[in-house]
Structures are given as C-alpha cells and as structure tokens.
C-alpha cells in the first residue's frame, strides 16, 4: 500500500470534499433553475372532427366541463361550471342541477333556482377549414 503523508491526505480529502460540495451545489442550482410552476388550466380544447357531433346531439364534455349542442342553427356550448361556487352541474331531465347546492339551470343555462345568481355562460366554438373543432373557455 503506497504511503501517503498526512499533509497529502488532508489536501486530497479537502479537494474531494470541495468537489463533492460543488457538485451538490451545482445539482441544486440546476434543480432550482429547472423548476417549472404548475401549468395554468387550459382554455382551448380540441374536440376533434365536427362531423363526430351530428345535428341534434347533446354531448357532455366532462374534462372541460361543458355541454356541446348541435342544432339546425349550428354548434353551441355551455359551461357546466356552476356560477355559484364552481361545482360541475349535472343533467336532470331537461334541467341542469348543481349537486353541491342544488342550483338549477334551464337547458340554455338560464337560472331556474339559486343560490347561483348568474346563468351558465356560453362558450365559444370554432371550426377550422378542415372541419376540426375547438372550444374556448375564455
């Protein structure tokens, strides 16, 4: 086993510790700089081909959440987020009912019974020239 003097040992150990400390620091810096904040909720949703939604269809889109309706006059979409506190309303017969506090809305989002004070807002539907449909929340 090669002899190593106390002085050289201290020198080697110090440099090794410095190097490891530097690596740890560098790792922390990379991690800090690489931090990504939580992404904002999406505001535009790809609904696929408009042809998938025939005239007369009512489609619940739970991930948005929204109700997409296709009538003779075209596509309309209604937010299903209750305007009271933000729960997702559910269809009950011809009405939309909030399961949290029982606000009731008509098919077009009109308030039938509070505590919600505002109607369910309409959402914008766009169809591209190639027939693909998107929905915008704001």
């Amino acid at each position, binding site marked *: 086993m090669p002899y190593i003097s106390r*002085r050289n040992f*201290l*020198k080697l*150990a*110090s*440099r090794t*510790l*410095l190097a*490891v*400390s530097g690596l*740890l*620091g560098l*790792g*922390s810096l990379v*991690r800090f700089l690489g931090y990504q*904040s*939580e992404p904002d*909720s999406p505001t535009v949703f790809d609904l696929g081909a408009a042809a998938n939604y025939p005239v007369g269809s009512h489609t619940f889109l739970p991930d948005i959440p929204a109700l997409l309706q296709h009538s003779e006059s075209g596509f309309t979409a209604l937010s299903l*987020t209750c305007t*009271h*506190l*933000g*729960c*997702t309303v559910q269809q009950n017969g011809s009405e939309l009912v909030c*399961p*949290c*506090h*029982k606000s*009731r809305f008509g098919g077009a989002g009109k308030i*039938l*019974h*509070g*505590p919600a004070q505002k109607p369910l807002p309409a959402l914008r539907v766009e169809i591209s020239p190639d027939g693909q449909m998107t929905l915008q929340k704001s």
Partner: protein
Amino acid sequence: MQRLWFAIASTMLFMISVLAWRTESQHPRPTALTPTLTGKVEYCLTCHVDLDEISPSHPVETFGCVICHGGEPLALDADLAHASMRGGANPSDLAVVESSCGGDICHSGSAAVHRDHIQRVATSVQATYAGAIANIRYTFGEQASLSPTFAINAVTDSSSQTGITSLEEFDLSSESNPLIGKFSENCLKCHLGVEASSGEENARFTGCAACHTPLQTFIRKEGELGAIVTSGAEEGLHTLTTVISYNQCNTCHNRGNYDLRTMEFLQRAGHSLDRLYDYYQPVAQFTQCEYTLDCIDCHTRTEAMGDGDIHANQKDIEYVQCKTCHGTLTELPQTKTLTNPDDIAFTLASINPVTDLKLGDTILVTEKGEPLWNTRVLPDGNYTLFAKANGQQFIFQPVMGSDCKQDPARQDSNFCHECHALER
C-alpha cells in the same frame, strides 16, 4: 496551519451541502390541486390525499382546502403549511367561522335569509347561553329580573323581534359572588364556543362542527351495552353532515344535573348508546316517539340554530310540541302541499335524501311554517315520518278522532306524558 483551516472549511462546506441536499430530498413530490373556486394551486393533497370528502356540498375539486382551513397552500413542510390555519383543525370555531365559512356566497350575509347561518348561530341560545347566565345571576341576586344582559360573546341585532337587541359579554372578573365563579368554572361547558369536557362521551368540536361533525356517530359498541371499541375520533374528523343522531346532541343535552347548592355539574357516567336508558335523564318522562326518533326529527333547524333573533333562553326558541305532528282533538296538524319547486323543503330534502320529496306531496308544517320535509300526509289520513338519521319509516295518527281526552288548550308535553309516558 493554513492547510488545516482549509481542510476544516472544506469539511464544513461538505456537511452543509449534504444536509441541505438531504433536507430538500425528503420533501415529497407535491400533489397539486387547483380548486375551481379559487383558481390557485395548493399542495395540501400531497399529505392529505387519503382524507375523505368532507361533504357532497364541499367537493375538494371545487373548494380545495385553503379556502376553509387557511394555511400556506404551497408549503411542503407540515409545520409551515399548518402555521396559519384558521381554528386549528376546526375552521368552524365561532372565533374564526366568519372567515372560514362566511361570505355572501356561503353561509353569511346571503340575501336568502335561510342561508345566513352564521348570524343565526352566533345569536342563538346555544352560542350565547344567555338564559343560563341570567338564571344564575338572578338566583344569586346579581340581577333584578330574568331578562338576559350577558352572553358568552357580545351580540347585537338591532332588528331582533324579541325585544332583546344586544347582550354584553359575560365577564367573570366583574362578578363578586363566588358562586357565580363556580358556575362559570363548572357549568359553562356546553355552549358552542367552548371545548368539550374530557371523556369520549363528551367528544364534540366547537362552532358548526359541534353538531355537523357528529363524532358520536363514529363511536361504536360491541356486544353488551357500553363496550366501546373504537373512538371514532379519526374516522369522523373530516365530515360535515345534517345527519345528526341524538347521541351527538347528548354530548351537551341530558348529560347531567346542576347542583345549585354547590354550583357543580353532576355528570352522568358513560355513553348514551342505549336509547331507552340513555336518551333522557333518569328522572325524565318521555313517549315512545320521543326516544325512538332523533332530536332533529322533531326539533327544527330554527330551534337548534336560532332564527336570527336574540332569545332569552332555550324555552323561548323551542316551540315544537306533540300537537305539531299529532294535532289536537279539535284541530289536525298543519299541512302544506308542495307546488313550488323552489320551496325550501326540497333544498332540505336534497341535503339529506332519506326520502324522495316530489311536487304535489303534502307534508306537515310547524306552527311557524317550517316544513317538516321528512313527513307525508297519507291517503288514509294518517301520517308518515322518515327518520333523518337512518331513514326508518314510522306511521302515526292524528289525535282528532282518537280516544284521547286531552284538553286542546293544555298541550305541553307533560300533559301528554300523563297518559303516554313510557316506563323504563
């Protein structure tokens, strides 16, 4: 010497780096939730992902945690995250309830009177304890009449219909009679602002959660009477419900007697798990329906939570009697056919769906018009009631047309008990 210092400095730097790295590595990977209501990210679910949904009216995806509980939404260190929580584990404590549960879209300041819960509860007898304080001060000559002057917390209501528009905060230091001090020490243990006494049978929270987080529901017995096997303290912690069994009410009511000579509270032993023996105190008389049903089956939300006015005592706010459901020899109980889909009866029934209430149903209503939404008038002239705590159905008859000989003017329960009291 210089090399030695260099070695020491390197070692210390290394130790600090390792310590910092280890501390950082121990933080869990955050679980983010962005509640619809606030739109702001919170990391509470990183640790509390297994917590039960508190109620169908408060889904976590909509409310999150912070809007009710406070706290630091982005902290991953438990102490830091919990440091600024409102009311500790109980944001419904009356000291913080306005911040936690209030607001005109929630439980205070709402244009809809029946939703202004916090104001009603804060002025209710269960929060003010005005009657007990006035009675004791009057008994020991500290005030000239039974009219209340003091409450646990000062309350004002300029529009109070009872004539009592304000009560001052009860201040023990201004009382000279030592028995008032003993009353304060031994008997002021059951208003909504005070922590429960020790003992599992007294387990309840303060504020709204005193009733709506019914810890007693989660206390079970096994085999013979009184063999408690689980404490329920963890199981029932994160619950808000309108399903409130009698034994939750019994954490305060029917728990014992005051000894007016010594100003001590003589508490009954054990849990109120056996309805026949434990519902009421041993000296009490009651009928079968009074002990078979739960308190909330007869007593209305207004009686329990107050009507927004300041009342002198419990007797002033309680008004439901036997005749509310059974009528008298000369009058049937009041009823109402539901024709308006906005009737509050439907809201109440939807919160606790033990029965499917429909338009056109005829239900009983109290003398003040409160809907007894869990009742129906049957085609044969009898009535049915669905117990709010478990949905059990009961059929009962009106007094009119029966063999009862009770004077219609004498309807206090003690008159009914003369014939209908049950033996234990």
